């Protein structure tokens, strides 16, 4: 006879359980928003949370590192910009093409790059991201150069996505879908293989895991996540510049992952929230934005390496003893 506590325990162990409080917050939050501005900030939080989630799969779970991930955001962003305006491809289709191209690019460079480890991998991915930014900056005929280019709004048949409150729901749903996919992956044979690779590639190999193939798979998946986020970013802003794929952007993504918690899906949302909301909230400190980002990164890596969510949950479970 299952007691209520037993049933709750069972539910708690279900892989999608962390999403329940999340859905509650997402539904309730808009009721508290006093103006459209808040919807926009929340929308941006979701966008970066999707990118951070992808990067978290790569860094937090599989234990790799990418300091150039914003490059893939750039690919997605420029895809939805160039497609409709230069190639007459519908925005939605451009969106999909951007993701497909990111996947292809990740597949192509991933195999050689992922053979590297530690700071070699870090710098190789960094170099890759900067290379993409240089291309976006130089090929002005396509990309509008350093000043950027305008982006047509997302339109499906007759309906155009215009209102920022609609964006909120679209992006919240997109983030939830991304989170479900990520949680699915984690609680699966591939997910276990990736987590094993994080701790010992050698042991994973002797147990039959094709390490190279798995690393490539998670790299491609995380590239698609970044591309999707980048496309959304371009569409909601109506404009993009090459810094969407820049070094600083890539480092911000890393900061979101480490701050929220490596290996925590909810942490990706928290990390994104902190790094998107704080600069908006502290506009007086706008000039200090970079200094604060740098300091935050250092402080987290020195003192709170596991990130907010894992540290919190460890503290909470510790207090139950």
């Amino acid at each position, binding site marked *: 006879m299952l007691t209520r506590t037993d049933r709750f325990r069972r539910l708690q162990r279900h892989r999608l359980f962390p999403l329940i409080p999340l859905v509650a917050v997402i539904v309730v939050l808009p009721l508290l928003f006093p103006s459209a501005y808040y919807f926009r900030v929340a929308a941006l939080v979701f966008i970066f949370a999707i990118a951070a989630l992808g990067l978290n799969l790569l860094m937090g779970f599989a234990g790799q*590192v990418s*300091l150039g991930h914003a490059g893939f955001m750039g690919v997605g962003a420029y895809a939805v910009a160039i497609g409709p305006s230069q190639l007459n491809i519908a925005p939605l289709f451009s969106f999909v093409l951007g993701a497909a191209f990111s996947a292809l690019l990740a597949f192509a460079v991933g195999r*050689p*790059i992922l053979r*590297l480890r*530690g*700071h*070699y*991998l*870090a*710098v*190789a991915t*960094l*170099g*890759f991201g*900067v*290379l993409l930014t*240089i*291309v976006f900056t*130089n090929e002005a005929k396509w990309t509008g150069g350093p000043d950027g280019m305008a982006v047509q709004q997302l339109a499906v048949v007759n309906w155009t996505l215009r209102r920022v409150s609609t964006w909120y729901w679209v992006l919240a749903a997109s983030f939830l879908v991304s989170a479900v996919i990520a949680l699915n992956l984690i609680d699966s044979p591939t997910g276990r293989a990736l987590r094993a690779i994080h701790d010992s590639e050698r042991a994973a190999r002797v147990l039959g895991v094709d390490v190279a193939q798995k690393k490539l798979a998670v790299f491609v998946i995380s590239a698609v996540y970044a591309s999707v986020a980048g496309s959304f970013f371009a569409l909601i802003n109506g404009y993009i510049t090459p810094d969407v794929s820049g*070094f*600083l952007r890539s*480092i911000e993504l*890393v900061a979101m992952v*480490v701050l929220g918690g490596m290996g925590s899906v909810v942490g990706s949302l928290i990390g994104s929230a902190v790094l998107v909301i704080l600069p908006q909230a502290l506009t007086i400190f706008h*000039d*200090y*934005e*970079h*200094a*604060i*980002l*740098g*300091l*935050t*990164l*250092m402080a987290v*890596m*020195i*003192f709170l*390496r596991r990130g907010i969510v894992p540290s919190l949950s460890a503290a909470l479970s510790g207090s139950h003893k």
Partner: protein
Amino acid sequence: MAAFLQFTFSGLTVGAVYALVAVGFTLIYNASDVVNFAQGEFVMLGGMVTIFLGYAGIPVPLAAVFAVFITTMVGLALYRFGIAPARDASAVTLIIITIGASIFLRGIAEIIFDKRFHSLPALFGSDPIRIGGASILPQTVIVLASALLIVCLLWAFIGRTLYGKAVVATSSNRMAATLVGINTRTIVGACFAISAAIGAIAGVLVTPITLTSYNVGTLLALKGFAAIMLGGIGSAMGAVVGGVLLGLFEAFAAGYLSASYKDAVAFVVILAVLFAMPQGLFGKRMVERV
């Protein structure tokens, strides 16, 4: 022929800066296994602090000395507050810490200074010397000579003095060095300080030619890294050769191929070296114990 010489001269000039950045990288990497991303900021600070002290009325030579001193302190602070507290952090964690430091220093520079480009007066005037149809600035000669001098001084220090030997000991095996009584914290701190000084000097010397602004550090650090990859991580000789070669590649690529993709050369070099010859030209292959 004149074009070729011209490209060679400009390549050597930037190459000398890259070489100095790379030497700074190598010193810190050898002593502590840290790839110090903030190395580029040391160069930026050398130039910018000199310039702004100059605006404040201090004669340039004195300002330069102060700038080098201040940057050295910054280097020490980076070690003391950024690296030393992060005990047994992984290589990637350390790189992220130094990236954080680099962004922080950039952010501070943005506020204290400004976002424009600045310059310094050249040491022996700005009339170019003509050689074989190409012209070379006297400042370039000074940069090259100083780079050579610094590397020789460093080599003498490492090879001939007791402190230098302590640095070598710390690089080879930190635990063993501690066990024989070497204060490794002091040694590593000193290496950060020396690297910062070298970077600052490079910044002061090269600003008359390339100008400087608050954000030159990032690209410089990346190019310095490309230089040590090319030369072989951990090798001082490799750092110099790698830096000069990178400068030449850049100049020739910009001259004969495409000027706007000049900055891409360093990254192509990084990726090419990592895939074809990861240990670089002079690097040592590490054998890992299973």
